[in-house]
């Protein structure tokens, strides 16, 4: 445990990361940046897992393990997302999310 850093401080960081991610997801037009924003959201959640495990149940490992799983899943998801973005690029000649609207009414 790092001295002087309370659970509240860590939660402030993770909440900030979470909302930065949401903001980026909603505002940026580039699909890759949106993917990065999604990663930020995921990692904010991971931090919460770790920090709650550390402070609430120091003798247990579930939180750590779960965050490891989430990282693994996120890696796979990133690979899939990049593949999708590549295909979008080929098809739409660009990765601006506003142009990817062929599923509208």
């Amino acid at each position, binding site marked *: 445990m790092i001295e002087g850093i309370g659970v509240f401080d860590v939660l402030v960081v993770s909440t900030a990361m979470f909302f930065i991610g949401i903001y980026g997801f*909603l*505002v940026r037009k580039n699909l890759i940046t949106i993917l990065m924003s999604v990663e930020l959201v995921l990692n904010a959640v991971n931090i919460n897992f770790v920090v709650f495990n550390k402070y609430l149940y120091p003798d247990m490992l579930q939180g750590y393990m779960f965050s490891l799983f989430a990282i693994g899943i996120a890696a796979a998801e990133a690979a899939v997302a990049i593949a999708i973005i590549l295909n979008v690029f080929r098809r739409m000649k660009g990765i601006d*999310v*506003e142009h*990817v*609207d062929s*599923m*509208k*009414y």
Partner: protein
Amino acid sequence: MHTELYSNTVWILIVLFFAFIIVGLFGNRLKPTLAGAISTIAILFTTVISYTTAYLYFFQQGMIDGKFAMLIPFEHEWLRFSDTLAIHMGIMIDPISVMMMVVVTTVSSMVHIYSFGYMKGEKGFERYFAFLSLFSFSMLGLVLSTNLFQMYIFWELVGASSYLLIGFYYQKPSAVAASKKAFIVTRFADLGFLIGILLLSYFTGTFDFATLLDSSGSAVSSMTGLSFMGISTITWVMVLIFMGGAGKSAMFPLHIWLPDAMEGPTPVSALIHAATMVVAGVYLVARLFGIYAGAPDALAVIAFIGAFTSLFAAIIAVTQTDIKRVLAFSTISQIGYMMLALGVSGYGGEDGLGFTASMFHLFTHAMFKALLFLGAGSVIHAVHSNYMNDMGSLRKYMPITHITFLIAALAISGIPPFAGFFSKDEILAAAWANNPLYFWTEWFVAGLTAFYMFRLYFSVFWGEKRDYQHKPHESPVSMLFPLVYLAVASAVVGFIPFSEFVTSDGMPFHAHFHWNIAIPSIAIAVVGIAIAAWMYLKPGNVANKLATSMPAVYKLSLNKFYIDEIYLWITHNIIFKGIAAPIAWFDKHIVDGSMDGIAWVTQRFSEKIKGTQSGQLQQYGYAMVLGAVAFVLLLLYWGAR
């Protein structure tokens, strides 16, 4: 019981049905003559069975305790509704069914043979024979029914086969229209029949004739005392059933289909629209006569309609120029006689003279009217026209047709010793016993009958010489044999002592000969023939002068009293405009309108909200996040309380 003696009657229906199936399904692959031969052999086979059955029944084994019994050699449960009510299919042997069986098979087999000559080379020869087999099957099924429901099924089957045969020349629009008309009119009448059957079975709990006609009258006793609109229930029921019979038997005002039905091939007219199917209505009333006897009001209706129809149709027949239409109206008139005879009849013993007379007339009429139609067919075959104006002095060209036609004309006119005289005499006697007014009406109709029949005879076979484009020639043997056979029958069947065999209650009695009835009836027939001879035998225009001197009466009769026009007017102005048009409006605007309205509202609404599905990922994201926030806020709000 002697029922097992008659078990071979089952084959009648089976053989004819299979003849229909084979000729109907495979007829187009067979040679036409072979297809025709299959049907003909089938009907000849049934003729043999029915003759032997008739012989066995009437002369050997039918009597049980001095009474002709109602035997059921075969019966099979077909459809069970409840513990007490089931529909059976079976065969019933009793005097009238055996008599009808003989009539149907005789006329049908003669018509089959005749058709070989008449329909030779026609397109659809095998189809024609398939329909003939279907008709014979259905008609015999009707005649041999053990219960009302079986009868109703076969009743509709004869209607359907009649429809098919009237519309045999389906490329002729008039034939198609006639077949539709026949079907719709009889179908409309059958609605009454069906309601009558349902009411009767509702009150009695059975369809079986044997139970319904139980001489104790126990089956219909549940109806006594009940009434509807001031008329007793049993009268309602029996009049409704009679309505079906009136439709099939072309009684006024449901007669309009029969003259048009002459569009069919002439042998078909002889078989269906003269001898067998059209008397099904008479047969129906006779079959249920035990119940009708308990409903005198219904019988009065039948007598009145029968008398009126016979007069009405005879007046029309006088002016028609189409040879087949004259015969058609003559048929309607003669069936009117039969109905009248049933209507004036009492039940049991000598009182049942009308019943016997009606069945007797049915029998003799089948013979001579089939003969008249076949003779007319022979003439039409030779001249290639239906119109009397195109014919004349044919006796030189067609001697056998001429003689047989003359015998039939004498028979229908009631000249002794031919068949019609005896049966008409009994009918007139029965009418006299009931109501002299009926007697005088029918007496007058007898005169009219003799007149129009000899008008037909003289203008076809005598009259002025004509230059025919093709010289008319006598018909082939296949057409002459049935003519001769039926002519012999028409000449001799009158001597059958019918009251010894067919009576209302099965007990034979001895009918007396009524000189006081016979002499006036012969007299009026002779007068009718004499007037016809005076007007039509020699070339001249007596008839035209007479027609122009009474233009109103003449036109009224020529146009069949405008009954068809009245029907058309009623359908167009009342049914179409008054009922069908408002219903169509309701359907179009209210029923369809409400459905269309729902669809319209949905469409408009979806038009408005479809923008939300923009395809813009980030808009969805906003919505999701805002939704989550709103959800959290709500939870907080509730959590705080």
